[in-house]
């Protein structure tokens, strides 16, 4: 994603350190970490600090942002959702999992890979080509990221949109309105359903704990 604004704070750094420690204990080649949580819960920030922190341990990790893989173009999404019914269409089905899985396969193979990359400023979908030969690890973040196949560590952020409404306004990504609230509620239900599959839970206060 191009032109994204991250609000990285002490809590992300602290939770990130704990996740890194866990990763180092379970380290394996071409490892995959996934971070799920609701809109505004800090997934991208957490992915950023984890990937960056791993460099200090000699691990080359690349963040992969699932919001780049929406099937419907950003400029058409609102109308498409309204036409098809928010309750019916908002969920994992909105994403192009085939392309995502192809990019993941290419990461595993250590070859060059091309995938979508949204520019939030132009609202266009660019194409990003990455040479995965030197990349040791993928940090996948997105609402439903922990649904991805073959993930080694699943991280779930427990903050819900009720607590992060403020963060949404600060980020200024989208105007708050009735449509947005309906989408957030549906996403909330879909995301919370994934919680039982998590390995690591990041609490409301961003504390770290193991799920099982």
């Amino acid at each position: 994603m191009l032109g994204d604004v991250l609000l990285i704070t002490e809590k992300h750094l602290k939770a990130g350190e704990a996740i890194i420690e866990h990763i180092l204990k379970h380290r394996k080649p071409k490892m995959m970490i996934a971070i799920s949580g609701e809109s505004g819960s800090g997934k991208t920030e957490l992915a950023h600090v984890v990937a960056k922190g791993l460099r200090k341990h000699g691990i080359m990790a690349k963040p992969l942002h699932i919001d780049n893989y929406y099937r419907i173009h950003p400029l058409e999404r609102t109308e498409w959702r309204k036409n098809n019914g928010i309750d019916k269409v908002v969920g994992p089905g909105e994403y192009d999992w085939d392309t995502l899985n192809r990019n993941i396969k290419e990461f595993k193979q250590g070859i060059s890979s091309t995938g979508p990359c949204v520019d939030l400023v132009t609202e266009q979908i660019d194409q990003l080509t990455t040479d995965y030969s030197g990349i040791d690890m993928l940090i996948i973040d997105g609402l439903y990221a922990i649904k991805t196949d073959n993930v080694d560590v699943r991280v779930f952020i427990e903050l819900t949109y009720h607590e992060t409404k403020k963060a949404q306004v600060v980020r200024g990504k989208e105007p708050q309105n009735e449509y947005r609230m309906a989408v957030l509620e549906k996403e909330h239900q879909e995301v919370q359903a994934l919680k039982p599959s998590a390995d690591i839970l990041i609490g409301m206060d961003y504390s770290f704990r193991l799920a099982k």
Partner: protein
Amino acid sequence: MLNDRITVTAKHEQAADVVIEYLADKLRPKFIITIGGEVGSGKSTLAYALAHKFKKQGVRSKIVDLDDFYKISPLERKSWRRANGIESVGPDEYDWGKIIHVINDFYENNVSVMPCVDLITDYVDEISTNFEGVDMMIINGLYATKISQSDLRIFIELTYDETKEAQIFGDKEEMTAFRKQILEREHEMVQGLKKGCDLFFDFDALVDKYHL
């Protein structure tokens, strides 16, 4: 640039308003704004604030960071500079041929392939953008105002000492004696470009830019 961290403050917003007012009767299709100034002075942040304000006016702009166009990749640059001496630091480190090519693609509404540094991995990815429908290009970089196709040249003031501290806070590169030498040389070369500029800003970087 992928995974760049941008913190927009009120000062950047105000500066963007000044630029927009200045351009009120000067805008024309396929407009190019260049933003020059030293490392850590706020070039990319102003680019971002500007692009968002233009977006609200229906002007679609693509931000291009000149640091994506270094001939030597980030992971090799330090040793390359050491091997070639401090005199090698300057505008010649950039691939101007490639930059001109991208500018021509912008003018001709082509799909353009550009290098794109991932600031987490320090690898150079490639990004492909369709310039069809893109009204404006905002190019930021140390020597961006050298670009002869610029319709507006913005210079951001920052004294060397401030840059040095911003470097440390910005966490982009750690400060070493050689790094300091490079900053001093870049300072001289960037200051040499000042007289050709149209608008000048000073964000007094340290006050509230880095909030960590």
